[in-house]
């Protein structure tokens, strides 16, 4: 009987040891925000939190001082509103200046990295439906879909990296030779330089050969250049400012993942997260 008791205590202590959560603390702040400059990060909001974002992308920096490096040329503007139904599911609606282009998306957190042991990476699924409010022969020509699997790891308190696979489908191809479906590899890096200042860089690498081939007529997007960006993030206690330059042809994902042309643009994002019991809302 006494032996049985000891065995039971041993078993319970082993069980307790396995459930010791201090070895597996969820990693926070892999990225400062739910987006870096142009692309989504694995970050999702916490339950019942809201995020409002305003983003601008200006004209071609190459226009020089006379056009204030593109700032005089007006800006593409994007407004985004995200809401977290649960910790693992964020939904959002956005409106951007191309068309205009409306979209709704969902982000589902699949994995959360734990430290020092346990899950090595965080992963998030992203799906979005885009609707361009432009003249079109058929209604469905205005639609585009984007799905992404994003995987990130915070390697240290200063460095995080993310890779993803993005699948973009456009019902109406951008050019007679252009495909309807694209696979891309978005890569995001974050370097925390100071406590409230980080540097980031991002690129969307193509997973197809952008060449005109006779046996595969729709594989060439004229003017395609892989998109790339650099960003500085500044956190001011409530707001996050992201200021950067990127080689993109617009502001929404179909234009930032699929860049056409050589233009680099200044741009910035401002984001604010609201919590359900936020005193500033009452």
């Amino acid at each position: 009987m006494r032996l049985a008791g000891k065995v039971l205590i041993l078993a319970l202590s082993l069980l307790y040891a396995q459930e010791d959560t201090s070895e597996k603390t969820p990693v926070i702040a892999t990225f400062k925000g739910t987006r870096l400059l142009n692309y989504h990060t694995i970050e999702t909001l916490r339950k019942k939190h809201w995020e409002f974002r305003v983003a601008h992308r200006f004209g071609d920096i190459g226009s020089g001082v006379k056009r204030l490096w593109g700032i005089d040329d007006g800006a593409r503007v994007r407004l985004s509103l995200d809401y977290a139904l649960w910790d693992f599911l964020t939904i959002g609606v956005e409106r951007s200046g191309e068309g205009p282009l409306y979209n709704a998306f969902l982000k589902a957190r699949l994995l959360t990295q734990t430290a020092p042991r346990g899950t090595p990476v965080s992963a998030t699924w992203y799906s979005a439906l885009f609707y361009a409010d432009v003249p079109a022969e058929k209604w469905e020509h205005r639609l585009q879909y984007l799905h992404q699997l994003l995987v990130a790891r915070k390697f240290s308190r200063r460095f995080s990296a993310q890779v993803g696979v993005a699948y973009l489908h456009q019902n109406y191809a951008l050019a007679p030779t252009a495909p309807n479906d694209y696979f891309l590899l978005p890569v995001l890096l974050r370097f925390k330089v100071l406590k409230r200042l980080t540097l980031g860089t991002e690129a969307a690498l193509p997973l197809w050969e952008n060449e005109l081939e006779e046996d595969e007529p729709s594989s060439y997007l004229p003017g395609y250049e892989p998109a790339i960006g650099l960003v500085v993030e500044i956190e001011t206690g409530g707001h996050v400012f992201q200021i950067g330059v990127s080689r993109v042809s617009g502001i929404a994902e179909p234009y930032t993942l699929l860049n056409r042309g050589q233009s680099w643009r200044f741009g910035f994002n401002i984001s604010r997260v609201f919590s359900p019991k936020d005193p500033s809302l009452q």
Partner: protein
Amino acid sequence: MYRADTLFISFYSDAPLEKISAESRKGSYSVIHFGPDTVYVRVPIRSFEFPNKLMQEHFNEDYLESDRYPYAYFRGKLVAPIPLNAPGEYAVSAEGDLIIHGQAQRRLLSGVFQVLPDGRVILNGKFFVRPADHRISVPRMLWQKIAEEVEVRFYGQYRPESTK
């Protein structure tokens, strides 16, 4: 030896532009040895829950740096002994090191001990922490949002436990 089976720690920062509060309800560890009258408290920084989770993230990342300094501690000694065999309320003080953000400060903290007839001891009280004393830097831009002195409240329920 008395060990806390319940220990709640909360803090409140009342600055002109923002009122911030957070609460830790689990994960803390505390023991009091009533012969030598020593007090030990260990509070995981990650256990503080804020209504605004972004604030919670900033608190951990930029202020308390909980990946480097995962716990706050108090190690001290009661200034006067507590008559454990006489139920009642007693004002107490403990002198010792308050360690937050890896920075120790010699402090005299006060509270109230309630000795219950069933042998439990309830401890509660409050004290103030100056972030600057613990090298918790507040950017000049945020001075209006974070109080110079943060009020910390504690509530613990202790039960006697045989020492092994």
